[in-house]
């Protein structure tokens, strides 16, 4: 995919005019804009979670179990979205869940970006058996569906949110490594690379300064999309009991705990799922927009 990157962009490191052009392309896509603003809103909610949340998300209000949301009969004004089975305020938990989900996404993307890109650079730059070993390792990771691989890794590391994030990062490594490697291989024999090599640039410099910027566009798209898949996978792991452990306010874990109450109190199942959906959708919308804007060859709309 990266091999098809336009020749023109590859010679320039991002400069203002490119950015302006990018924004023009990006903002033409209404969906992407919606996604972008949703994400901005989510980030604000996440940062201000302590201020916005009416209560401590782990605090259990005695006797206020399973209150419905404010617009349903039998609710309390104090709890706009009601309470869960042990009397915790759902709104507060959802707000803190937003923070947690974004943190999960951020950490997973950062971890996998750093390690994946490094592996890809090394594989593409050195080639030979180094390349072979790295790529076979990636094959092995990809031989299992990501969720299953993550389950297995967590089983080894013990159940916790941190380990869930590590596990998810490992499962998305191959995407980054492959993208980077492909970009490096297509660039490495081009004149400008050879020129800097002749000029005496070291391997590290070549990899990081010369080659890396040219792999950026597909990586940015991939990062946005894996942000959403990280949130989704973390929630799925939480749902299966292998992610965040209660009483952490993580959406998937909340859903899993709420599952027993689906008949009588459907809202405590509905709300966390809706939050996951909206967040994931926002990142997917933006990812689509980014792809179209950054990668004219792959333009879909």
């Amino acid at each position, binding site marked *: 995919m990266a091999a098809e990157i336009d020749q023109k962009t590859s010679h320039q490191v991002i400069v203002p005019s490119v950015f302006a052009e990018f924004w023009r392309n990006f903002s033409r896509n209404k969906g992407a804009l919606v996604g972008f603003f949703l994400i901005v809103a989510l980030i604000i909610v996440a940062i201000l979670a302590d201020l916005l949340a009416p209560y401590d998300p782990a605090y259990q209000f005695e006797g206020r179990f*399973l209150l419905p949301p404010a617009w349903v009969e039998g609710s309390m004004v104090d709890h706009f979205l009601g309470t869960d*089975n*042990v009397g915790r305020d759902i709104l507060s938990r959802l707000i803190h869940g937003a923070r947690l989900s974004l943190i999960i996404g951020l950490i997973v993307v950062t971890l996998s970006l750093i390690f994946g890109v490094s592996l890809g650079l090394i594989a593409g730059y050195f080639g030979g058996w180094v390349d072979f070993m790295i790529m076979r390792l990636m094959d092995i990771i990809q031989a299992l569906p990501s969720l299953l691989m993550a389950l297995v890794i967590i089983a080894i590391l*013990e159940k916790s949110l941190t380990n869930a994030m590590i596990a998810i990062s490992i499962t998305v490594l191959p995407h980054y490594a492959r993208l980077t490697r492909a970009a490096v291989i297509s660039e490495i024999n081009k004149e400008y690379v050879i020129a800097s090599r002749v000029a005496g640039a070291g391997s590290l410099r070549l990899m990081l300064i010369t080659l890396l910027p040219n792999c950026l566009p597909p990586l940015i798209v991939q990062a946005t999309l894996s942000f959403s898949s990280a949130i989704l996978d973390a929630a799925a792991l939480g749902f299966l009991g292998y992610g965040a452990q*209660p009483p952490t306010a993580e959406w998937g874990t909340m859903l899993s705990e709420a*599952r*027993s*109450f*689906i*008949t*009588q109190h459907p809202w405590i199942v509905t709300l966390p799922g809706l939050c996951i959906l909206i967040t994931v959708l926002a990142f997917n919308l933006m990812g689509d927009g980014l792809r179209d804007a950054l990668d004219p060859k792959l333009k879909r709309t």
Partner: protein
Amino acid sequence: MKRYLWQALAVAGLTLSAIAPVQAQNKTLVYCSEGSPETFNPQLATSGTTFDASSIAIYNRLVEVRGSKTEAEPGLAQSWTVSDDGLTYTFYLRRGVQWHTTRNFTPTRPFNADDVLFSFKRMMDEKHPYHKVSGGNYIYFNEVDGPNLIKSVEKVDDYTVKITLTKPDATFISILTLHSFSILSAEYADKLLKAGTPERLDTDPVGTGPFVLVNYQKDSAIRYTKNDKYWRGAAKIDTLVFAITKDASIRYQKMRAGECHVMAYPNPAEIESMKADKNLRVLQQEGFNIGYLAFNTEKKPFNDKRVRQAINMALNKANIVKAVYLGSGTPATNPIPPTLWSYNKSVKDYQYNVNKAKELLAAAGYPNGFEATLWWMPVQRPYNPNAKAMAELMQADLAKVGIKVRLVSYEWGEYLDRLRKGEHDMGLLGWTGDYGDPDNFFGNLLSCAAAGSSTARWCHKPFDDLIVKARQVSNQAERTKLYEQAQVIFKEEAPWFTIAHSIATEITRSNVTGYQISPFGSHDFYGVELK
């Protein structure tokens, strides 16, 4: 094979084509079970789920516990005598008991002493051709120390069996009610061994019980038909289906939709709405279990009785039980459940009293409290639905008397392992009774013999003398007295903070009659009727 196919087709066709009259002829009871059986041989099993599907439906034992009772009654043994020295048990077997006829076995003879010998020898004799089949882990047999307790099993004649013990044991008859002592067919076993497929004995069972296994689809369903020749009389339902449904809410939904007739282990939170549903009947019974917090009595400061008593007073039991068991648990005073004989009603529990607790701690030399670990298990158990929540409540209570508690937990297997090694200060655990004898609780959990691995690591001579003696004496009235005394000492010495006995809840559709909750948590559909 073909015959079953046609039978099944006929059943399917009939239930579909006609509505009321035909259905009355073929009654299918569906039990929404909570998991898949590990095997169909109860000798190899440990879980109640497996016993429900195997020993209870398919097999019989020499002596059995049935319905809501905890006492043993005659099963395949019509009667038995015990020698004066308490070492030799002679069992007189029931005549004319037929083995099941299944698709790969047609019996040529009724049940007799050879079957009893086969069933015991397989577990006892390491050289028995069947001993190592299917992994050969006879966990319950080992738990009751079978290899050392039973000296020999001999055939006197076709319908008389003599079992000799190495030492007198008043609990032996109760032990024989364990599912693992189910009687398997020796004739079938021989046939399979000759065919070179001995492991099929454990997957394609042939028993003497009320139901015959038709088919098991892993993780999906188990189907039985009634045993027309059952020696207690044929069951009142024609087909029994276990619909395996792991999730409690889904089981409830299936109950509401009429897809199941009986279910167990409901979500505590849903019990209220179940009670309100006219189509459902909620059955509850005090469970045969105990949840406890044990103090590691080998470690300081828990080797001091006053500290243990102080903690007993510092913990608000009523509040803990209410919050954690959500109405399906009763606060516990003694280490055995109230439904078990010899339960001492006159024992008074410690009252919640923070000041008194502080005084005791001060007297023991800890006026400012101390630091300690409290371990909680990572899984739900029948006797404790939420150990973590419980641990947090206890932590808050103990902080009030100055004891700073650090909560510790490990993966379940590792948790048990470390507890057995005594790495904890205080640990949450519990016990579900296997058979109706107090020794099952006292001996396993509080005896000196078990002190090397029990959670309290408690060995108190006066107490131990009582329970050791109670196991040897055969007179039940005498035994009751000894156990009652033991409970008084237990409370005074306080090696545990006894938490609760959980209440078992099971749901049936209102057209199900004759169903009884078993104190041991087993599910028996013999005698159940569909109206």
